[in-house]
C-alpha cells in the first residue's frame, strides 16, 4: 500500500510533537499526559467527544493557553508559543470552526488583514492585494471577485475564505477544526481535493471532525481523545468508524451525579461533605429492601405508555458485579458523599413521579425552515428529558422556539394542554415556563446589576402593589433570601454585590434562582453546566432533580452526553434539525446516542418517525 511505504519512509520525520502535555482547569485535569506526533506532509485526524480535550490541545498549539507540563517540539526544536502570532510566525495556521471574518470588509482585506502587502508604507499595494487574493481564492475553488464584501457570502463560502486566509501565510501546518459543518457537498469535495494537493506539497494538517467517514477518507493517522487522555493512536488502516466510536465512549461514568430523591424520603438532598459513601449506600439499600418488601410503595405496575420503569441497562451492567464489594464502593467514592448515579437504582420509583402520563409541554410537528423539522414530543410531569446532539444540530434553536424567542413556521406548542401564542416570552413565563439560555452573559444576567436585582427580575411583578406598582420590600427580600438558600449561593456574596464578581458556577445559580422564584412548571435549561466547576455542577443537577420531584417538567439540553445519561429519565437525540432517536432510561447507551448524532442514519430516522 502506498500509504504504508510513505509511512515507513517518514516515521521519524515528525514536523510537530506533543510530549506529555498536561493541563488542568480549576483542578480538573482536561489533558492527561497527551503525546502525539504530526508527520510532515500528512494529515492527522483528531477525534473525540465534545469536551474530550481537542480544543484545549489546539489552543495550546495556537499559543492561547500554556500547558501545565510537557512540551511541544517543532522541527525537533522546543516550541513555546505565548501568543497566537508566535504560532503564525512558526508557520502554523488555524481554520476555526466559528468564523472570525470581518463582514464589513472585502474578501481580499480579510485575507490579508494582518499582513497587507505595502507599496509605499503606509499605503497598501491594492493591485498586489487583489492579485494575490484572487490566486488564493482560485486555489480554494471560490469563484468570486476579491473585492466582494464578506457580508454578502453564505456561511459555506465564508469558510472557504477562512481557509484562503490560512493559506496566505504559506503554512507548514494547518489545523482545520470542523471545516465542513457549513459547507455544501460540492464545497466539501473541493476542500478535500485542496487538502490532497496541499499534502502532496508537503503541508501537514490536523483535521478535527465529528464526521468519522471523512476522517477515515482523508487522514493518514488518527488519534482518539477521551476525557483528556489519548485512547487510540495509529495509522488509518487500524481504524473503522465503529472502533472510533467505541474508543470515544468506552468508559464508565467518570462524572458523578446525584441520586434522585425517593418519594417521601425525608433525608436532606444536599450531600454532606463529611458524610461517607457508605451511608448513602446503606440508605439506598434499605430503601430497596423496603420497596421489595412492599413496605413503602405498592408494586409498580407498568402501563404501556410509561417508559421509566424496569431495571435500567446501567443497573444490569452492574448487576454482574458483586454489589457489596467493598473495593468497588471505595474506588467509586473518590469524592466523599457524592453518589454515582449508576449505582443507584433510580428507576424503582412510583409511576406518577417519574413522568406520569400528564404532559406539561407538548410539541406537535414544530418546524422552521433550515432550523428544525417536524419536531414532536411531550414532556411529562416530574420528568427530566434530555436533548442530545452535536453543536448545530438545532437543540438550542428548538429551545428558543419553545420559549418564543424565535419564530416557527409550522406546528403547535402546547403548555398544560393549551396552545401557546406564536412569540414573546412574557406570556410563556406567566404560564409557568422558564428558560435558562445558553449564553449566560448576554441573555441570562445583568452582569453589572446586583445579585438581588438579578434574582428578583422574573418574579418581581408578584411583589408589586397597585396602583403604582410599588414593591413590597419585605416579601421581595424574603423571596431573595429563600432563593439564595435554595440554590446554595456562596454565603460570602452580599445581596448588593454585582453579579459579574461571582464565579461562573455562582452566576449560573443566580440565573437558575431567578427562574425558580417564579416557580416554573416547565424549566428548559440550555447547557446548564457549561464552564462550571464540578462541585457546582453537582448542585445544579440536584436542583434539576429537586424541581422534577416537585412535579415540574425539566428539559435539559447538553453537549455532554454523560451528563444527560446521568440526570435524565429520557433522552432525545437531534441531528440536522430533526429528532433522530429517542431513548428511555432502560435503553441509555452512549454508542447508540453518538451513532444517532453522528452517522447519517436514514434507518434511525425512519424508525423514529413511525408513530
Amino acid at each position: 500500500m502506498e500509504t504504508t511505504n510513505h509511512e515507513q519512509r517518514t516515521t521519524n520525520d515528525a514536523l510537530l510533537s506533543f510530549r506529555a502535555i498536561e493541563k488542568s482547569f480549576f483542578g480538573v485535569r482536561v489533558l492527561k499526559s497527551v503525546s502525539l506526533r504530526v508527520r510532515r506532509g500528512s494529515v492527522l485526524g483528531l477525534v473525540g467527544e465534545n469536551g474530550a480535550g481537542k480544543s484545549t490541545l489546539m489552543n495550546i498549539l495556537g499559543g492561547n493557553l500554556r500547558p501545565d507540563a510537557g512540551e511541544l517540539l517543532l522541527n525537533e526544536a522546543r516550541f513555546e508559543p505565548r501568543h497566537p502570532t508566535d504560532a503564525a510566525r512558526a508557520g502554523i495556521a488555524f481554520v476555526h470552526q466559528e468564523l472570525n471574518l470581518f463582514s464589513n470588509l472585502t474578501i481580499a482585506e480579510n485575507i490579508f488583514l494582518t499582513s497587507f502587502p505595502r507599496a509605499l508604507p503606509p499605503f497598501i499595494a491594492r493591485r498586489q492585494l487583489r492579485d494575490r487574493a484572487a490566486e488564493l481564492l482560485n486555489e480554494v475553488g471560490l469563484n468570486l471577485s476579491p473585492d466582494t464584501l464578506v457580508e454578502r457570502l453564505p456561511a459555506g463560502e465564508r469558510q472557504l475564505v477562512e481557509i484562503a486566509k490560512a493559506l496566505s501565510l504559506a503554512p507548514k501546518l494547518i489545523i482545520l477544526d470542523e471545516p465542513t459543518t457549513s459547507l455544501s457537498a460540492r464545497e466539501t469535495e473541493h476542500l478535500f481535493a485542496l487538502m490532497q494537493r496541499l499534502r502532496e506539497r508537503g503541508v501537514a494538517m490536523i483535521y478535527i471532525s465529528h464526521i468519522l467517514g471523512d476522517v477515515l477518507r482523508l487522514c493518514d493517522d488518527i488519534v482518539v481523545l477521551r476525557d483528556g487522555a489519548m485512547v487510540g493512536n495509529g495509522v488509518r488502516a487500524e481504524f473503522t468508524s465503529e472502533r472510533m466510536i467505541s474508543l470515544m465512549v468506552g468508559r464508565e461514568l467518570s462524572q458523578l451525579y446525584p441520586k434522585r430523591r425517593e418519594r417521601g424520603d425525608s433525608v436532606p438532598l444536599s450531600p454532606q461533605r463529611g458524610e461517607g459513601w457508605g451511608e448513602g449506600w446503606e440508605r439506598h439499600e434499605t430503601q430497596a429492601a423496603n420497596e421489595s418488601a412492599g413496605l413503602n410503595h405498592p408494586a409498580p405496575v407498568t402501563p404501556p405508555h410509561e417508559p421509566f420503569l424496569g431495571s435500567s441497562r446501567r443497573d444490569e451492567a452492574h448487576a454482574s458485579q458483586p454489589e457489596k464489594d467493598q473495593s468497588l464502593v471505595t474506588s467509586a467514592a473518590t469524592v466523599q458523599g457524592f453518589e454515582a448515579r449508576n449505582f443507584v437504582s433510580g428507576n424503582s420509583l412510583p409511576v406518577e413521579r417519574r413522568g406520569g402520563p400528564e404532559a406539561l409541554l407538548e410539541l406537535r410537528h414544530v418546524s422552521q425552515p433550515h432550523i428544525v423539522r417536524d419536531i414532536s414530543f411531550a414532556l411529562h410531569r416530574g420528568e427530566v428529558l434530555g436533548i442530545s446532539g452535536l453543536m448545530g444540530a438545532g437543540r438550542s434553536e428548538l429551545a428558543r422556539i419553545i420559549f418564543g424567542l424565535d419564530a416557527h413556521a409550522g406546528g403547535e406548542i402546547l403548555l398544560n394542554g393549551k396552545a401557546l401564542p406564536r412569540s414573546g416570552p412574557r406570556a410563556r413565563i406567566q404560564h409557568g415556563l422558564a428558560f435558562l439560555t445558553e449564553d449566560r452573559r448576554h441573555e441570562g444576567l445583568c452582569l453589572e446589576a446586583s445579585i438581588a436585582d438579578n434574582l428578583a427580575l422574573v418574579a418581581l411583578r408578584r411583589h408589586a402593589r397597585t396602583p403604582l406598582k410599588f414593591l413590597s420590600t419585605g416579601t421581595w427580600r424574603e423571596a431573595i433570601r429563600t432563593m439564595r438558600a435554595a440554590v446554595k449561593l456562596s454565603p460570602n456574596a452580599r445581596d448588593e454585590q454585582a453579579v459579574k464578581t461571582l464565579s461562573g458556577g455562582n452566576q449560573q445559580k443566580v440565573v437558575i434562582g431567578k427562574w425558580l422564584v417564579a416557580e416554573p412548571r416547565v424549566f428548559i435549561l440550555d447547557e446548564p453546566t457549561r464552564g462550571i466547576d464540578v462541585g457546582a455542577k453537582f448542585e445544579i443537577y440536584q436542583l434539576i432533580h429537586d424541581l422534577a420531584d416537585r412535579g415540574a417538567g425539566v428539559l435539559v439540553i447538553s453537549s455532554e452526553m454523560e451528563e444527560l445519561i446521568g440526570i435524565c429519565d429520557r433522552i432525545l437525540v437531534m441531528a440536522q434539525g430533526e429528532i433522530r432517536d429517542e431513548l428511555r432510561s432502560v435503553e441509555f447507551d452512549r454508542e447508540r446516542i453518538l451513532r444517532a448524532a453522528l452517522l447519517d442514519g436514514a434507518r434511525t430516522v425512519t424508525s423514529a418517525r413511525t408513530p
Partner: protein
Amino acid sequence: MTATTTSNEQRTTNKFLTLFASEYLVLALCVLYFTALAPFAEGFASRGNFGNILLTLLPLFMLAIGQTVVLITGGIDLSVTSTIALTSVVGAMVMSGDNGWLAGNPLAVPIAITLMLIVGGAVGLLNGIAITRLRMPAFIVTLTTMMFVSGFAVWLTKSKNIGALPGAFTLIGNNLWISLPLTAVVAAFAHLMLSRSLFGRWLYAVGHNNRAAYVSGVPVAGITCSAYVVSGACAALASVLLTGQAETGSPVLGKNLLLDVIGATVIGGTSLFGGKGKVLWTLFGVLFLKLIDNSLNLLNLSDWDIRMVKGGVILFAALMDAVRNRFVVRSS
C-alpha cells in the same frame, strides 16, 4: 508591630476611596467649590443670589430628571429642548391674553398646562415608538425630532414670541414658594418610582442588559417607550417654569440648555451606558453646574469663557466617573 503603620495608611486610603466612590462626592465638590470661590466672587454667598441660583436650577433639574430616566435605559433624549420650545408656544397660544384661544377664561391656565404636558408626552411617545418599534438608534431619532419639533414651534408662531400670559401662570415659574415645592414633589415621586417601583426595577434591568431583561419577561419595548414619555413630560414641566420666568411663549426657549442637561446628569454620575443613575445624583450634578455658571457670571467672565470652563468640567466629570467605576470594581 510593623503592621500598625501599614494598616493606618491603608485606613486613610480606604477612607479616601470610600469618599471617592461615594455618591455624595459631587455634593462634597459643590461645598468645596462654594467655599473656595465665595471670597472672590462678590455676592456669591448672598441670599439674593441663592434665590437666583434656585430659580435657574429648578427648570434644569426638572429637565434632568427626565433625562436621567432615559439615560438609565441606555438611551439619550436630545429632543428635550425643542420640546420645551413647542410646549411653551402651545401653552402660550392657549392662554395668552393677546388672541389666545381661551383668553380670559378662568380655566385657561390649568387647560394650558395640561395641554403642554400632553404635547410633551406625545413628542416623547413618538420618540419611543420610533426607537422601540422601528428599532432606530435613540441618538438619531431624538436628534431629528429636535430639528423637526423646533422648526414646527417656529412655524406655529411665525417666529414671534407670544406675550400677555396670565399672572397666575407666570407666578409658577417666578415664585420660589410654588416652583420649589412643585419640583420637589416631582423629584420625590421620580425618586420613589426609580428606587421602589416595578417600573424602576425594570428600567434599570433594561439599561443593564436589554436582552436578558427581555428573556426574563420584562416588557422592554413598553418600558423604553415610557422612559421617553416621562422625559417629554418633564420637558413640558420645565417649560412651564421657563415660560413663566420669560413671561412669553417663545419658539426658541431653552435652546441653550441641551448640553447643560446632559452634562449635569453625567456630572451627577448617571452613566451614558445605561443601568446606572439616581435622581439625587442628578440633583447634585445640576447644583454643581449651576454653581459654576453663577460664580463665573459674577466674576464677569464672558460667555465663551464660561463655556470653556463648563466643557472642561463636564469632560472631567466623565473622566472621574470612569475612574470611580474602576475603583468600585476593584474594591468589590
